[in-house]
């Protein structure tokens, strides 16, 4: 069905090509993972939820690994990537996009400082133990301060809590502004809604929690360690809660548009029953939302344990990790399918090896996991691994 009584599918001549493609789909996906993982870490550091104590550090490292690659899809997308730094030199503050440079870099600095404080004790220990070039690197990481006194530990704890606290609104800003980028475009009926920043943020948290669950299960399986079932149970409850709100808001937006039956619905209705039917109605909603909703509800209410909990949690998390990816695709690409002539839809063409193709997208999405793996060779991440020291190192040195 074509919108607005159109007899043929018409789009403006310049709309033959979609400009925001897979790179702009994965960019909010990656920053969403950053924000989501950080929120999990803060659930322990700020809200003191004991169940997540053992994964707080792991969540922080994951956030960092995802964060390292957040800007990469943007550099692939820009027509003039060598001018990317213009966003630092002349940020046009009427544009939501202009804040990217400073918000992203300041957030990464905040994250790195928090990680540094968390790992400082370990860096000091390694700097004392190792010689030569590796020893030098560990020494640099300590910034030359070689003792770890209980007072210093208390200072670290206070600063960490403070950073985790301001990190929450900062992470929300880092991802929420992306929602605003879309939500404020009046020219695009599918994008324009004030709910967009909240929807993006909530789905980001959902993706972060779900991704951490999958990573945790994989790591514990590969390292043949025990699973922390109470933590998994609680994590899935939080996942369900955040997902309910997220799903509700996504649905609310459509309900409003359909009810008002105004200009927005005149193009959104045909969009959802037409070009976006498979990826949105069947994919995102039926398979990837309703099913995990039921699974997580079951986990929360009936509290399965052991292997049952593990499989259900993994299944729900996998579906939700995909749901959020589908959501990003349906929003970014779906919105651009609508012609601004109000009289038709344009087409999205999948590319594989091109700049915004599937292959580069898969590589960029895989990169954080590769970095995470490399980091595990150097630092302890999940709490009860053998290298972790539980006690602080004595204050005086050998002099």
């Amino acid at each position, binding site marked *: 069905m074509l919108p*607005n*009584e*159109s*007899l*043929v599918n*018409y*789009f*403006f*001549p*310049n*709309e*033959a*090509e979609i*400009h*925001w493609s897979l790179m702009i789909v994965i960019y909010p996906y990656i920053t969403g993972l950053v924000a989501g993982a950080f929120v999990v870490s803060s659930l322990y550091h700020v809200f003191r939820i004991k169940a997540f104590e053992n994964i707080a550090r792991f969540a922080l490292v994951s956030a960092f690994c995802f964060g390292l690659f957040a800007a990469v899809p*943007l550099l692939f*997308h*820009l*027509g*003039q*990537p060598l*001018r*990317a730094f*213009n*966003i630092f*030199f*002349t*940020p*046009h503050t*009427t*544009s*939501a*996009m*202009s804040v*990217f440079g400073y918000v992203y870099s300041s957030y990464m600095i905040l994250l790195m400082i928090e990680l540094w404080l968390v790992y400082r004790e370990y860096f000091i220990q390694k700097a004392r133990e190792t010689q030569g070039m590796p020893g030098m690197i560990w020494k640099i990481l300590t910034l030359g301060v070689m003792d770890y006194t209980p007072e210093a530990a208390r200072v670290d704890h206070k600063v960490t809590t403070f950073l985790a606290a301001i990190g929450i609104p900062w992470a929300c800003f880092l991802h929420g502004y992306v929602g605003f*980028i879309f939500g*404020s*475009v*009046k*020219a*695009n009926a599918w994008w324009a809604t004030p709910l967009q920043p909240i929807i993006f943020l909530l789905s980001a948290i959902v993706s972060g929690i779900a991704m951490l669950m999958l990573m945790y299960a994989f790591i514990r399986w590969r390292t043949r360690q025990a699973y922390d079932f109470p933590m998994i149970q609680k994590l899935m409850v939080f996942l369900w809660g955040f997902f309910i709100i997220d799903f509700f808001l996504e649905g609310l937006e459509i309900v409003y548009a359909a009810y008002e039956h105004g*200009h927005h619905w005149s193009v959104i209705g045909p969009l959802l029953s037409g070009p976006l039917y498979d990826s949105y109605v069947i994919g995102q909603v039926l398979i990837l939302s309703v099913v995990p909703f039921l699974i997580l509800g079951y986990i929360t209410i009936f509290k399965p344990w052991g292997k049952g909990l593990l499989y259900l949690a993994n299944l729900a998390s996998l579906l939700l990790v995909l749901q959020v990816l589908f959501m990003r695709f349906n929003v970014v690409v779906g919105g*651009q399918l609508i*012609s*601004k*002539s*109000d*009289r038709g839809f344009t087409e999205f063409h999948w590319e594989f090896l091109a700049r915004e193709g599937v292959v580069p997208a898969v590589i960029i999405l895989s990169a954080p996991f590769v970095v995470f793996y490399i980091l595990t060779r150097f630092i302890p991440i999940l709490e009860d691994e053998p290298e972790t020291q539980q006690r602080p190192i004595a204050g005086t040195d050998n002099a």
Partner: protein
Amino acid sequence: MTTQTSNARRVFLQKLLAGGAAAGMFMVYRQPVVAALKGADKTAQAAGHDYAFVVDVNRCIGCGQCVRACSIENDVPEGQYRTWIERYVVTPDGVHVDSPQGGMYGFDEVDEGLAGEAINTFFVPKLCNHCAEAPCIQVCPVGATYRSPEGFVLVDPEHCIGCSYCVQACPYGVRFINKYKHIADKCTWCYHRVSQGKLPACVTVCPTQARMFGDLNDPDSQVARVREADNWDVLKPEAHTESMCLYLGLPRVVV
């Protein structure tokens, strides 16, 4: 550590911070001071003109000369359009809109069935509206697109990073990313011609004077008289873009 060295260290750090702050202030304010000292304010020189464009739908014959002329004048890449012509055929069952290659080579006659149903049919030229409240300018993250003092909405070809946000934000679909230059591109009202006292290329070649361009501040110009007569429309008035492209005889079905 003795108290002497710790004091010395503290003093050193304080000086470092103070010096750094002073240098930072200098760095932040260097450029605006330099710009102010340079004097020659282009904005003052250009003051006085307020350009606008008029399209008379009743006169357009869909010949496509304007699209060809624009393409030649501005090296517009094939398949991309700084201006184009749409044909509307209104029937009781709906609207048929088409724009084969932007209308560059004219149009073939509509097929008989459609012609039989037609209640109204006409051509509509489209181009950048050079809006006074342009959403494209609002969303540009680096200030590469702007509105000149005389009303031209332009793209700085040296500064644009090609992010395409402006393309998304334009309600009229007039912007695109130039496939060879990889920066945002669109109709410039032939700024390079107007600044030499000529008319935009499309206005120059239109055989029926369906396109008009002029200075609203010149009471004798066609555009000023059209605006005064208050019988014009703009595209998508609900978007409140303060479009400076005034349409005469614009039928309701046109979006």
